[in-house]
Each structure stands twice: as structure tokens, then as C-alpha cells.
């Protein structure tokens, strides 16, 4: 960080194993973002001093990687903790229970509301059924999801990371289990530090913790496979060991990843593995509200007693009483008072911790809160803070979300549930018959995306005096063959179009295949060519 070299601090660049992390933090911090400070000094925006590589004493022989510092987050209660519990219950509830929600699609069709039917290449979401060629709807969904992330970021920073990301949600749940069994922060730290042979109670605790973790992880994997098969049936099969091998393999894989990611890797996933912190650092701007320590509430940070002594001497002292509660509750083990940093997932728990303390000592809450540097500077200058949630950036994001959403919705509502594709025979392109007339053969695919059988008629437009014949179909109306299309499937037909050569002197005439649903009147068409030999 800027402070390390410019502030005369004795901590030097790369002086320790944290070199890589510090560098990352520095790279991920846009200059206008980071008027950060430490207890010794504070710099306004204009005073950031560039750091030249030549000035930095890199340690070329130290270890390349920093060992993980175990984190023991303390329990906390407050507004953001409540929001997090609520969102966790909601997200996990949706994930675990959604496969069991039923949806009536009629006889013979899957009755699961959300189902990825891979063997039949169908995707079901309530009233929507998608065929493989309609996967582009997912593209739209992904675009909306990406822009929504951008919007969240420009309004409230890493809302995704702090509240909704599966990594955060499951890690939070695993921490809750750990806390329930092993006790709160101090107790866990004490137990972890205790040497010697573990007592039976300790062994039991550890066994119980890992068992519950594995149970959650197993349930996570189990819920995943239910999205790919009829859930109640698969649950029965799984319980009686009759489910497909693949189901067990996937459950095993997801059990392992959940157990490892939420139980052991935890904040390291966010800090080292996840690209999103890097992306968000590039996306954020000066108006975005991030979890911020408001240093405008004064420095320096010291205990209540010392602070009043300092004040009595006419020296400055801040609202922060240096109680380290914000550090104690942090699930990534950082000090938010060091300013915005890569490791911070902005879960808001430090806000709750600090508010609790501030209430106790009778000071104004939100010493840590959702804020930005502009407002800190404004308050320092004696101005009122300004919050600009609505600004060109957020307007553009919202408009894009609305636009893409509207396009998708329009495409979905107006899509045809009857479709026809025509492929002209290439060998032979055309055949001359014994009476001199010309015959062209086509492979016609008819797509019936409705959940019921229906009868369609095929007409052709184009070549003069053309007749149509469908191989294998004896239609009551030979000039207008009627075909029965099975529900929710593609029907392949071999269609012969014959026309007199004297009436069709052109080398090639466009021919339009028009498919009409006799009952509903729905029409689909496709155009190809009628070729003379």
C-alpha cells in the first residue's frame, strides 16, 4: 500500500512473506480509490506518492508463498448478521428444495418444475421448456447476471461476495457449525493452541464437527443431482443403491468440493482463487458504497481512557477505541481500518461488531459502514455527505438489464412452438422422371414443441404445377399431405417434390414449405430451392 513506502513506516515492501499479498492489494487498488491511511499519517488524494520498483527492496530469497493464518471469526449479532442469516436460509432453501417442486405438464411429460433432462436434451423451468437449439436464452440470462453483478458492485460494492456467493454462504454455514460445537473465537483459539494428546471430549468435538460438515456437503451434492432427474424417484433409487453410477460419482465430487472449499480453503478461495475480486476492483468507482472505516471520525485510535487523557491534553483522538472487535468477527481475518482491500468480501459483519461497541460506549454508530471516500473527504471538509446511487453508470446498467430482459422475454413469448427445417438432397440434386418431369427430394424436419400430438398439413409454393409426396405417408389428400407429429419431438420426413419440366424452365426456383397446424392454425415455413437437372 501507499502508506508502506510513503509513510515512513518501518514495514517495507516485500520485507516478509506477505509481499505477494501486499502487491496484489496495491495492484487492485485504483489510485482515486485509495486515499488510505494508517494511524501515523493521512494523505489527501493528491498526495499519493508513486512507488518506483527501484525504491523497493524486494526479498528475492524469502519464501514465495505466505502460509495461511487461521481465522477464528467471532459470533456477532446485528442488522447485517440478520440479513446474512435470512439470505443464507433463502439461498440454501431454494437450492435444496427446488428439485422437489412439482409442475404439471400433462401426461408423459416430466412433472418437475426445474429439470435438466440431458438424455432427452430438454430443459424445463416451470412453464418454459427449452430445446438444445434454444440454449441462447441462457446467454441472455448470463448477460443479465453479469450486468446485475456490475450494478450491485456500482451501488454497494461486493454484495455478491458478502451475501450471495455460494462460497460465502457455505463457509458461513460451516463456521456456524464450528462455533456451535467448538465454541466462540477465544475458545476455538485456545483449543487449537492446546498441545499434548487431545482429550476424548476434544476428539468427539472434532469428529462431530466434521461429520456435520460432511453431512451438509453430502446433501449439497445430493441436491445437485436431483436437478438432472426426477427428484422423488432418484431419492428412492439413491436410498436403495439403485441410482445410476454417475449420480453417486457426482454426489461424491460435490461432497468433496463443498467439504474442502467451505471447511478448509474458506477465505483463501476468495483471496487467491476467485477472479471476481480482481474484476470488481477494476469495475468499482468513487461513488460505490463499500464497507469503509470512517477515519473522518478522528484519529488516533486508542482506548477510552487514553483517548480522554489525550483530549484533556488538547491532542486529537478518534472515536475508534481500538477494541479489535471488527478484526475478531472478520471471516477473512483482516483489519477493515486499513482501508478497502482485496481480501475484504464486504459481508458487513464488522459493521455489526463496531455498532455493538459504539452503542455500549454511547457513541454514534456506523464508525464502520457502507460509505465511500468522497463522503469521508466531504465530512472532513465540513460538508454534508452525498450519496449518488442514481448516476450515469447505474442508469446504464439498469437500462441494459431491462433491455436484455425485454428482448429475452419478447423472444420467449413470441417463439414458435412449431418449426420446420428443410435440407435439399445433394446426391442427386434432381432426378428426371420417365415422363420428362423433374423431381427433387428433401429431408424435412418438423419440430413439435407442444406437449401434445398434432396434425399438420404440408403445402409448397414455388415451382409451377408442383406436386408433393411424403415417403411412407398415404394421405387422404394427396396434394396436401397430412402428418401426425408426436408431442415434444422432431419428426423427420423424406419429401419428394415433382414438377413438369416444361413449366419450370428455370435452373433453380425457390420453393417454400409451409407447415400448418390443422387444429391451432399455427404456421411455420422454410425455403429451399427446386433445381432442374
Amino acid at each position, binding site marked *: 500500500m501507499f502508506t508502506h513506502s510513503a509513510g515512513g513506516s518501518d514495514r517495507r515492501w516485500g520485507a516478509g512473506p506477505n509481499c505477494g499479498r501486499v502487491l496484489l492489494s496495491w495492484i487492485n487498488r485504483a489510485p482515486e480509490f485509495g486515499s488510505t491511511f494508517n494511524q501515523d499519517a493521512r494523505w489527501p488524494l493528491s498526495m499519493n506518492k508513486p512507488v518506483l520498483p527501484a525504491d523497493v527492496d524486494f526479498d528475492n530469497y524469502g519464501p514465495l508463498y505466505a502460509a495461511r493464518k487461521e481465522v477464528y471469526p467471532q459470533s456477532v449479532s446485528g442488522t447485517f448478521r440478520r440479513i446474512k442469516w435470512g439470505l443464507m436460509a433463502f439461498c440454501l432453501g431454494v437450492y435444496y428444495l427446488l428439485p422437489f417442486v412439482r409442475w404439471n405438464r400433462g401426461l408423459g411429460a416430466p412433472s418437475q418444475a426445474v429439470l435438466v433432462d440431458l438424455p432427452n436434451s430438454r430443459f424445463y423451468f416451470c412453464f418454459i421448456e427449452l430445446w438444445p437449439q434454444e440454449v441462447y436464452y441462457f446467454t441472455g440470462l448470463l448477460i443479465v447476471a453479469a450486468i446485475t453483478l456490475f450494478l450491485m458492485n456500482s451501488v454497494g460494492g461486493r454484495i455478491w461476495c458478502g451475501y450471495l456467493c455460494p462460497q460465502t454462504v457455505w463457509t458461513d454455514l460451516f463456521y456456524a457449525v464450528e462455533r456451535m460445537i467448538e465454541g466462540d473465537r477465544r475458545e476455538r483459539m485456545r483449543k487449537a493452541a492446546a498441545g499434548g494428546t487431545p482429550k476424548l471430549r476434544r476428539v468427539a468435538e472434532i469428529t462431530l464437527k466434521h461429520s456435520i460438515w460432511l453431512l451438509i456437503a453430502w446433501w449439497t451434492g445430493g441436491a445437485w443431482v436431483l436437478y438432472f432427474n426426477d427428484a422423488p424417484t432418484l431419492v428412492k433409487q439413491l436410498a436403495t443403491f439403485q441410482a445410476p453410477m454417475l449420480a453417486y460419482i457426482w454426489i461424491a465430487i460435490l461432497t468433496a468440493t463443498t467439504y474442502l472449499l467451505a471447511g478448509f480453503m474458506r477465505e483463501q478461495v476468495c483471496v487467491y482463487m476467485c477472479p471476481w475480486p480482481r474484476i470488481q476492483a477494476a469495475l468499482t468507482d468513487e461513488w460505490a458504497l463499500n464497507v469503509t472505516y470512517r477515519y473522518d471520525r478522528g484519529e488516533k485510535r486508542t482506548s477510552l481512557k487514553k483517548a480522554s487523557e489525550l483530549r484533556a491534553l488538547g491532542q486529537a483522538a478518534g472515536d475508534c477505541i481500538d477494541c479489535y472487535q471488527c478484526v475478531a468477527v472478520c471471516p477473512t481475518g483482516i483489519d477493515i481500518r486499513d482501508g478497502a482491500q482485496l481480501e475484504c468480501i464486504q459481508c458487513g459483519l464488522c459493521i455489526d461488531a463496531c455498532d455493538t461497541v459504539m452503542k455500549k460506549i454511547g457513541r454514534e454508530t456506523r464508525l464502520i459502514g457502507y460509505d465511500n471516500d468522497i463522503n469521508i473527504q466531504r465530512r472532513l471538509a465540513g460538508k454534508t455527505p452525498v450519496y449518488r446511487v442514481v448516476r450515469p453508470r447505474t442508469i446504464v446498467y439498469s437500462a441494459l438489464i431491462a433491455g436484455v430482459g425485454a428482448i429475452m422475454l419478447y423472444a420467449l413469448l413470441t417463439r414458435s412452438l412449431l418449426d420446420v427445417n428443410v435440407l435439399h438432397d*445433394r446426391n442427386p440434386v434432381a*432426378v*428426371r*422422371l*420417365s*415422363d420428362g418431369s423433374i*423431381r427433387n427430394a428433401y429431408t424435412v424436419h418438423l419440430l413439435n414443441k407442444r406437449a401434445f400430438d398434432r396434425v399438420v398439413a404440408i403445402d409448397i409454393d414455388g415451382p409451377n404445377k408442383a406436386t408433393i409426396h411424403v415417403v*411412407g405417408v398415404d394421405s387422404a389428400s394427396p396434394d396436401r399431405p397430412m402428418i401426425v407429429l408426436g408431442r415434444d419431438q422432431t419428426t423427420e420426413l*423424406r419429401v419428394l417434390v415433382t414438377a413438369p419440366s416444361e413449366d419450370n424452365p428455370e435452373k433453380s426456383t425457390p420453393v417454400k414449405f409451409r407447415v400448418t397446424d390443422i387444429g391451432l392454425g399455427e404456421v411455420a415455413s422454410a425455403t429451399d430451392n427446386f433445381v432442374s437437372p
Partner: protein
Amino acid sequence: MAEQNDIDHVSGKTTTGHDWDGIKELNTPLPRWWVLTFYASIIWAVGYWILYPAWPLLSSYSTGMLHYSSRADVAVELANLEKKRGEKMLALGAASLADIEKDPALLALVRARGKTVFGDNCAPCHGSGAVGAKGYPNLNDDDWLWGGSLDQIMQTIQYGIRSGHPKTHDSAMLAFGKEGILKPEQIVTVANYVRSLSGLPTAQGYDAAAGAKIFAQNCTSCHGDTGKGNQELGAPNLTDKIWLYGSDETSLVETITNGRAGVMPAWVGRLDSATIKAMAVYVHSLGGGK
């Protein structure tokens, strides 16, 4: 070699002790991980020799304890494929030809299987698209020498044409010129007459009455009074637009002079009956079937 390796003063590393005109080589041993990997590979290789085929012997090879062979794998997969096909082909064998064509599932099977079987067996003469060539009929059109119904096509595929099979189609066009039945100028005259049957222009100075007379005396027994042909005898229709050996005067003269007797092999015994059925329906579905 010096037992006590020297230290190189520039790099501070030990040398191998080898000295070439005052130049010494630094001792840079292989990395430990590399050496370990190397030893592991050797152990792995020994295990491989024991389990898998590895060593060539005088007349065979060491088969290994697993007795693995890729050829056996192929045989197993081919057998599985046949077994898989067998179930579907059984349904095909049980159905009648007309039913196969009307059943969308069986028709789809026939179209898929037919295409590959046709490519393997029929394409050399009839072409991959079944368009034929001179002397080899186009199977897409509606002109059939021996009949274009499902049963007739099946019959032709089973026993062939002039194939030597007892049940084969056997009649042939006489060599009117070679056998001395018709004189060359008569052949030219009747050739022009045959062209006139399907509306093709005739040569200048051609005697239509003489042509009709020659035709009536020699050709009608097979090709019919009006030249419409006879599928019982494989006699082509001379009044249509399709000519297996060409419709120009030279080709016709050659046909009448030397006769024609194209051969199609019998497929019974070469293809199983379900496949022959599939081929009959496939050929019929190409478009020309009656």
C-alpha cells in the same frame, strides 16, 4: 578424477573435478524430483511388462498377465454392435415391407441403415446417391426394368439380374446385328424408329414405314406393340425419356447390333434377410418406387 571436488570461485559451486586445459565443469546434479520420477518410470515400466504385452518373442510375443489385446477389444465391440443392431433388425425382419415404410421409427432405421449398406455394397455400380451411370440404372427415377414395387425391388435385390442364381431375372436383349438377324441398314432404320417413339428427332431420309415394319417383326414380342416395354422380361419402355444405354443413334445401333445384358449380383446369402428388406424399402424410398 579428484576425490575432493574443488569449489569454483566465481559461482561458489562445486565442480566435477574434471579439468580440461584449465577449464572445469560445475557440478550440476539432476534435480531430485527428476531422478525420482525417472526411477518411478523404470518401476512402472517393469510393472507394464508383467501386465501388458511387451516383448517380441521368436514366433509370438509376451502377452502379459492381463492378456490384453486391442484386436480383442475391437472384436468385442463389433459383437456388441451386432447385438445392439440385432434387436432392431429383428423388428425389421418381422414387419412386412409396406408396414416398414409406414412406420416412422422403422423407416428412420431403414433410411439410416440403408444409407451405409448402400454405400458399402451398391454404390460401386449405382453411385453413392443411387443415380447410376450408363448401363447402371438410376434408382431415384420412376423407370423400372423389372418393376418398382416393394416386392419387385426386393426380388431383384435378392436374386439379382442374370446373376446365375436359379431364381434370377434372366432374359436378355438379342444381338440382332451380331447374330445376323438384321442387316446394318435395317438396324439404322429401326434405331430411328425407336427414337421417334419417344418423340426424338429422326435422321433425314429415314423410312418410317420400314422402321415400323422391322420393329413389329423383331421387337414387339418383348417391348410390346407400342414399345412400352414389359417388366416381366426386363424389356425397357422405349417411349419414355429415360435411356439406360443412351438415346442417340450410335448408342441405339450398338444396342441393337450387340444386344445388352447388364448383370446385377444376387444378394441373398451375402446380406441377411432383414438387411435385404431394409434395402428394398430404402431403394423404394429414394423416390421412384411404385
